[in-house]
């Protein structure tokens, strides 16, 4: 599994396309049979309490893309704080198990693992 991480609109989708994945291969924030899960942060935000339980299914994907959501002021609302923490922790776990981790910044992919 390749984990792709980067801020909103940092070039994650374009990078996935460069790997040969088209729109038909990418699920958007939902778990289904597609090879790639795009928008992991949306899936986590939908139910932060169950974030860790997503791990086995995510590890079976060819690629998972997640927006960086933890770089900003700590949100006032508890649900938002809960979601960003759960997203961060899940990404740490995914990165530890991923074959490759790619970080996108200004459209530039940097391989930070693998």
């Amino acid at each position, binding site marked *: 599994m390749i*984990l792709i*991480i980067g*801020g909103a609109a940092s070039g994650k989708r374009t990078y996935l396309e460069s790997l040969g994945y088209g729109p038909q291969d990418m699920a958007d924030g939902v778990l289904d049979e597609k090879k790639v899960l795009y928008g992991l942060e949306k899936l986590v935000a939908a139910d932060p309490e169950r974030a860790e339980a997503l791990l086995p299914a995510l590890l079976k994907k060819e690629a998972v893309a997640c927006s*960086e*959501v*933890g*770089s*900003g*002021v*700590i949100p006032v609302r*508890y649900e938002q*704080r809960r979601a*960003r*923490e*759960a*997203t*961060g*922790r899940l*990404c*740490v776990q*995914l*990165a*530890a198990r991923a074959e490759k*981790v790619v*970080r996108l910044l200004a459209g530039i992919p940097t391989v*930070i*693992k693998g």
Partner: protein
Amino acid sequence: MLILLTGGSACGKSSYGEKLAVQGPKPLYYIAAMQPYDDECLKKIARHRELRRDKGFETIERYTSVDTLQLPQKGGTALLECLCNLTANEMYIQPEKPMDPVERVVAGVENLRQQTDTLIVITNDVGSDNEAYSEETRAYIRYLGEINAQVAAMADRVYELVAGIPLCLKGETV
């Protein structure tokens, strides 16, 4: 040796900071700046305590004025967590306010550096969402941004943690 660790929330800064700290000379101090004011803080503190358990840290709770903190013993390693809380505390709960938060937090880091062989400082990047915050919150972002820049300039090594992976921004890669 001064090491600064930055990154978003829950990106693995604490775990990496602890990993570096336990490799440093003893004694090991953990300087906790988070003031517990509700259940969520208590849970967070409990989680961090659990992570540090059996690693040999002596915990020192210090919410403000790290510039006057005297460690029990000179030398060794200290892990300061974190500048985000410390800055907010200097703004909101510091009883004496003649000193500006930036100056006081930076002086705090310098004070600890003088007393330790290895000092590891954890901070956060809070300026990367650019939302339309209140004047007060914008002041906090400015203070912490300035503190981060000053501490990074003082530091021997700076790492950004991304999904638990340390990216070296300054100094040598471990």
